[in-house]
C-alpha cells in the first residue's frame, strides 16, 4: 500500500473554489439541526459524505478546508476523520467505485473469483481506475451481507449473490447508464435529511 506516501502529495492546497449549492446547504442545515448547537462537529461525517458525492467522488484539501470552515473547526479535525474512515477517498475515483467484499464468508463463496474476474474484465488491478474514468476497483472488508455471498457494492448500492454472468450484466448496464444523471433519491443528501 502506498497510501502513506500519497497523503504527502495530497496535502497540497490548490485553492480551487469549492462551494455547496444553496439547495445542498439547506439540506445540510437540516442535518446540522439534528445535533446540539454546541456540538456541530457531529455533522462532520454526514457532510463529508455529501461533499464527496457532490464534488466528484473524492476529497481533497480544498474540499476538506471548506468543510472545516463551514463547521468552524480546524482543518486537521477534518483530515484526521477523512483519513480514518475507509469510505472517504483521498485520490480521484472512477464514476463507479466497485467494492468487492473479501472477508471470510464472501471469500469462501467466491469473493476472490469475483475480484479476479473484474480485474480481467476491466483490465485493471485492484486499487486502480479504468482509463475512461468509469470504474475503480477496491477490495473491502465485510459488507454485512454474508448470507447472500459473494457480495459487492457499487457507490453504496448492494449487489448480492454475484456470479460471472451477473457481473457482465451489471457492468454493461452501468456503461449504458453512465451518461445519465444519478437519481436524486439515491444521494446522501436526500437520504440523510
Amino acid at each position, binding site marked *: 500500500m502506498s497510501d502513506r506516501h500519497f497523503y504527502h502529495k495530497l496535502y497540497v492546497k490548490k485553492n480551487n473554489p469549492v462551494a455547496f449549492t444553496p439547495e445542498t446547504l439547506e439540506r445540510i442545515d437540516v442535518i446540522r439541526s439534528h445535533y446540539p448547537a454546541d456540538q456541530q462537529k457531529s455533522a462532520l461525517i454526514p457532510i463529508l459524505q455529501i461533499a464527496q458525492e457532490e464534488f466528484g467522488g473524492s476529497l481533497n484539501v480544498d474540499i476538506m478546508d471548506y468543510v472545516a470552515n463551514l463547521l468552524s473547526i480546524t482543518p486537521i479535525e477534518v483530515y484526521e476523520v477523512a483519513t480514518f474512515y475507509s469510505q472517504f477517498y483521498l485520490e480521484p475515483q472512477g464514476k463507479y467505485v466497485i467494492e468487492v467484499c473479501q472477508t471470510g*464468508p464472501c*471469500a469462501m463463496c467466491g469473493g476472490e473469483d469475483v475480484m479476479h*474476474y473484474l480485474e480481467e474484465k476491466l483490465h485493471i488491478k485492484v486499487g486502480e481506475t479504468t482509463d475512461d474514468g468509469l470504474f475503480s476497483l477496491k477490495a473491502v472488508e465485510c459488507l454485512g451481507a454474508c448470507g447472500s455471498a*459473494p457480495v459487492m457494492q457499487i457507490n453504496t*448500492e448492494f449487489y448480492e449473490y454475484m456470479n460471472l454472468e451477473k457481473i457482465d450484466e451489471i457492468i454493461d448496464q452501468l456503461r449504458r447508464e453512465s451518461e445519465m444523471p444519478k437519481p436524486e433519491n439515491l444521494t446522501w443528501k436526500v437520504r440523510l435529511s
Partner: protein
Amino acid sequence: MESKIILEHIEIPNIRQFEVYRQHGGYQSVEKALKTMTPDEVVNEVKLSGLRGRGGAGFPTGLKWSFIDKKSNKPHYLVCNADESEPGTFKDRYLMEHIPHRLIEGIICASYALEAHTAYIYVRGEYKYIVGILNEAIKACYQHHLLGKNILGTSYDLDVYVHCGAGAYICGEETALLESLEGKRGNPRLKPPFPAVKGLYESPTVVNNVETLANIGWIVQHGGERFSQIGIGKSTGTKLISACGHIHHPGVYEIELGLPVEEFIYSEAYCGGIRDGKELKAVVPGGSSVPILPKSLILKTAKGEPRLLSYESLADGGFESGSMLGSGGFIVYDEDDCIVRNTYNFSRFYHHESCGQCSPCREGTGWMDSVLYRIEHGEGRMKDIDLLVSISSHIEGNTICPLGDAAAWPVAAAIRHFRDEFEFHVNHPDIVRNVKHGSLLKYQKV
C-alpha cells in the same frame, strides 16, 4: 417452537409501512408505556425479562439501563448501535430493512424508560439504503404523533435521528461509536467512566444494539415475566441468528434460545444441512471474533451433552472446548474449506480494522496477518505456529477495547482445534501453493 417476537408479522406484505405495522398491533407498547407506566416501571420490566444485549457481549440490558446517572443535570441520550460489521452477522440489516418500525417502537419505549429526549441510530456507512428506509419510518412516526413534542398527547417529547458512519468496524464498539458520533476518529475510550455516566457529549448515555431494542416493545406489551419464560435459563427470549457459509439456506432466523445446534444446522426449517452433500467441518457460532469449533465440539459439548444455541451452552467448556453466542453470526464450513486460509482472512480483517491506538493490537494484528500469510502461501515454518499462539496471548486482555481479544481468539482457537492443518501447510508448501481456491460456478445460487 415459541411464537416469534422480532420477526412476527415479517411475512405480512408492506409491513415496512407505518399503517400496516400499526394495524398489526404496532406501537401499542408505546401507548401502554407512556400512558400507564412510569419510566422506572419500564426499566423494571426489562430487568425482569432477563433480556441480554444482542450485540455480542450479552450484558443484561435492564442492568445497563439502571446505571444511567440520574443525578447529573445533563440530558440523557439513547444511541442505537446499528454499526453491524462483524463478519458473518447481518441480522440487524435484515431487521431494519424489513421491519424498521419494530426498532423505532423499541427506541421510543427505551428512551422513555431512560428519560432521554434525543435518540440517535448510528448506521454503518455501507448501509446507505437503510438510512432512507429508517428516515421514511421516522417521518411517518412524526406524522402520527409517535415522535416529536407531546407524543400521543402525553407530556413526553422525543426526537430520533439517523446518523451515518463511513466504514470502520471499530465503531461498533460503543465508546468508539460515541466518538464517531461526535465527529471524531473512532478511537475507543478508556473505561471507566462508562457511557451511562459520561457518554455522548459527556452526558449519561445508553448504547444498545438494534436487536436488543427491537425486543423492548414486546417486553413492555406482554410483560418481562412472560419474556423470561421463553428461552432457557439465563438465556431468555429469542435470538436472530444470521447463518451463512456452505449451507443450503443462508439467511436470518429467529430462534428460541436453547434450540439444539444440530437441529439448527440440519433442519429444513433453518440451515437445511451442508451444501453439495458434503460433511460439516466446523462452525464459528457468533461472528468472526468468537472461537471456531470443530464438528465434534459444536454438536456436543466436551461433556457429551447436546450443544444448544444459548449464551451458556455455547460457552460451556470455556475456550478449551467452547465458544460464544456473540452476535449470532453463524458461519458454517464444509470439509473442503481451509481453516488456515480462513484464519488468515480474519487476521487480515482485524489488522485492517485496528484503530491503531494500543500497541499490542496495532502491532500484533499486523504480525499475525503476516505470519498467517506466510503459512497460507507455503512459506511457513513450524515455529510460526507457536509464534502465532504467543502473539495472540500477548494481545488478549492488553488493549483498551475488545477488538484485540476479537483478533486474538480466532487465531488461538483455530490452532487449538486444527493444528494439524497448520502443520500440513508448513510440511507441504508445494501442495499449498498450487491449490485453487473457490470456483464461482460451484457457488452460484440455484
